[in-house]
């Protein structure tokens, strides 16, 4: 019985670990960009040529909508224009009767500039590169704009995957502890590492919070 439990745990530890390993790499690599960010934003040379879209069927009162309702109303216009991605916070410019709609895909930013009077839009954007994609994924969904975020199916899937990565990481860490305890010869050294880690962790956190 105990042997069976050990073997099953070992296999689950292995396969779950292999599956989430690329996600851990994404989170681990993006940490370096977040901790040591570049001083300036990506160069404008990465900008793409703007293109116009005409004759858009704009829903009446679009500018008066807010939050998720505005996102849902803008989405068909974006689909028609062939712009896909996660819609960010939409800005309304009353003087020009214009909506500026930011649309993001990991590694790319697009702005859908919608002229409500002329029923036209200008699409511009830039490639922000793989590092920015990693950072974007690391921070998604994140705590901000909770009402409107995850409005694109791909990012909804990412949210699920990000959560799954955490749950599987917790599982492989707990199962890893079990697998280590079975190795009698390594108990003392492992215990020393665990204790050293605990002292480092609580020591740093204490210094940061109360020191």
């Amino acid at each position, binding site marked *: 019985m105990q042997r069976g439990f050990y073997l099953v745990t070992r296999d689950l530890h292995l396969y779950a670990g292999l599956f989430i390993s690329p996600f851990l790499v994404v*989170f*681990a690599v993006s940490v370096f960009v977040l*901790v040591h960010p570049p001083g300036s934003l990506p160069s404008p040379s990465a900008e793409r040529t703007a293109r116009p879209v005409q004759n858009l069927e704009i829903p009446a009162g679009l500018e008066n909508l807010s939050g998720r309702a505005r996102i849902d109303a803008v989405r068909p216009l974006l689909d028609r224009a062939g712009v896909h991605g996660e819609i960010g916070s939409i800005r309304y410019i009353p003087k020009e009767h214009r909506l500026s709609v930011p649309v993001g895909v*990991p590694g790319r930013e697009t702005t859908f500039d919608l002229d409500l009077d002329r029923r036209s839009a200008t699409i511009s954007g830039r490639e922000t590169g*793989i590092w920015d994609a990693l950072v974007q994924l690391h921070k998604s969904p*994140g705590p901000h704009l909770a009402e409107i975020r995850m409005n694109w199916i791909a990012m909804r899937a990412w949210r699920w995957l990000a*959560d799954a990565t955490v749950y599987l990481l917790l599982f492989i860490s707990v199962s890893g502890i079990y697998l280590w305890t079975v190795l009698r010869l390594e108990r003392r*050294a492992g215990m020393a590492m665990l204790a050293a*880690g605990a002292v480092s962790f609580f020591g740093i956190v204490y210094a940061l919070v109360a*020191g």
Partner: protein
Amino acid sequence: MPSSRDDCVRRVLDIFEVWNRRLHFYIGLYLLFFLWLFAFTGLLLNHPGWTFAEFWPTRKQTAFERAITPPPVGPDLAQAENILKQLGLSGEIEWTSARADARRLDFRASRPGHIFEIKTDFDRERATVRRIDLNVWGVMHILHTFTGVRAGDSRNQRDWLLTSIWAFTMDAVGIGLMIMVLGSYYMWWRLPRKRAWGLVALISGWAVCLLFVVGLRLLV
């Protein structure tokens, strides 16, 4: 008959195998609390609707005013550090607004769980401090993101030793994770009976991950 060179290679490989395995769980055990913190707080950050972990509505705010001696003329950072020392406070200094008046210096000093918003008037020789204290959930949230720097913001640099130590810790956790991942690939590959299903798990993981990192940009 195996040559002495083959024996030597075999020995090196054996040592590598033993130490790769040991490193896998030594690093895992050493980083355990760090990994749990970052994993759990990542989950909290992704679920702001989880009310049990609320910290901003329950924050405690206090304000006080203190006499200060105007710091010597010098860079903003040196003046801010001087004022913090006089007030008996410490933390990562953050510039909240551009300085318009040389006789005033406004800034924020923060550390996980505590935020100090400081406004000074050198002519009156006074400093007004608004202190915000957060609960344990707030501390955990901030630990996840406490780097002292932001992309595209060159004015705010890491200026507190403990922020640098924490940033180094974050780097170390990242490096440790990657060593564990690479080591686990080798250990898995040395198990011929597990290769097929392992390959399925690994390829599906990488395929999904690469779809998000590069694929979406190419597909849509």
